[in-house]
């Protein structure tokens, strides 16, 4: 880190950029609802309509960026069929929203 410090003009520009990004998101929160928050709730509601989601089996990650923010929702869904030894099978659904190209990626995987 200290070597890195020699080649830049101090840390204030980093502080400035971090604050600009954070405050842009916080100021928006008052006027219109947080898009990622809404997406998160609706994705969970849609899945929840079809299967019981265990809150412990849901991982949600967000990263609020300058031009792009990302939301990643990772849900483990129990399969209806059981493995021969009685161990329940799980599928995982992963959503990745707000990618660079504006796409919403949907991935599913079965164990």
């Amino acid at each position, binding site marked *: 880190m200290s070597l890195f410090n020699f080649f830049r003009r101090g*840390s*204030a520009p980093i502080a400035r950029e*971090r604050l600009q990004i*954070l405050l842009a998101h916080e100021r928006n929160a008052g006027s219109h609802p947080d898009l990622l928050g809404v997406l998160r709730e609706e994705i969970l509601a849609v899945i929840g309509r079809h299967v019981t989601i265990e809150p412990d089996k849901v*991982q949600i990650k*967000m990263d609020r960026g300058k031009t792009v923010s990302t939301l990643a929702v990772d849900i483990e869904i129990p399969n209806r069929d059981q493995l021969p030894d009685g161990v329940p099978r799980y599928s995982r659904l992963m959503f990745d929203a707000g990618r660079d190209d504006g796409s919403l990626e949907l991935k599913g995987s079965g164990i």
Partner: protein
Amino acid sequence: MAQVLVVTSGKGGVGKTTSTAALGAALAHDGTKVVVIDFDVGLRNLDLVMGAERRVVFDLINVINGVAKLPQALIRDKRLESLHLLPASQTRDKDALTEDGVAKVIDELRTKFDWIICDSPAGIERGATLAMRYADAAIIVTNPEVSSVRDSDRIIGLLDSKTAKAERGERIDKHLLITRYSSSRAARGEMLSIDDVLEILSTPLLGIIPESQEVLRASNVGSPVTLSNPLSAPARAYFDAARRLKGEQVSMSVPSETRSIFNRLFARKAA
């Protein structure tokens, strides 16, 4: 067994959040499991000082209200795997923080972590009293300055009367952490000395953190100073304090910036 620490001061701006982040990272450095909790509801800043502000999904109030499970709200530090953050909420409704809710969260954290560090808000209102409520030990952050010392004395009184441990008739361990200390100014008689502060507050000393530009740089880049520049004077002082918390005997000194010729040559560029 898990230890619950509260980092408190009464007065604002003395370095509670900086110290919480620095001590949390210092304690977690060897893989010890540490969680730092921001109790400053409405004015959270520990996330910013730790560099996790862009990744907050859920917060302490969400966990208390049952909106989120504790593991969903915990943010794992990107640099130290064993360091976690539980952010405060930005809601204006401070009543959302309830005594029962905090008790449940702390109990659950006790089963998962070795150290639970509660970053208290300034003042003596609800947030501050709940941050200290379930603590086993307290770190009182004090600047060598009259108003800070006075407020610390007030907080020490609260720790001895309003905490769950005090109400059970037990004594809460108290440690004094003196921050923004300048040896040269104290030597010239311009600043209260360590002995002055210790005599007035009669509380055991945990560490002396020297005034340093490294502390501002660390908060600028969103990293505990013990991670951003572990060899700097304040970082070494925080590492010493962390070792004392773990029960090690570490001689008390005020680390100073070591200035090699190389450092001096580049001092202006590095500043």
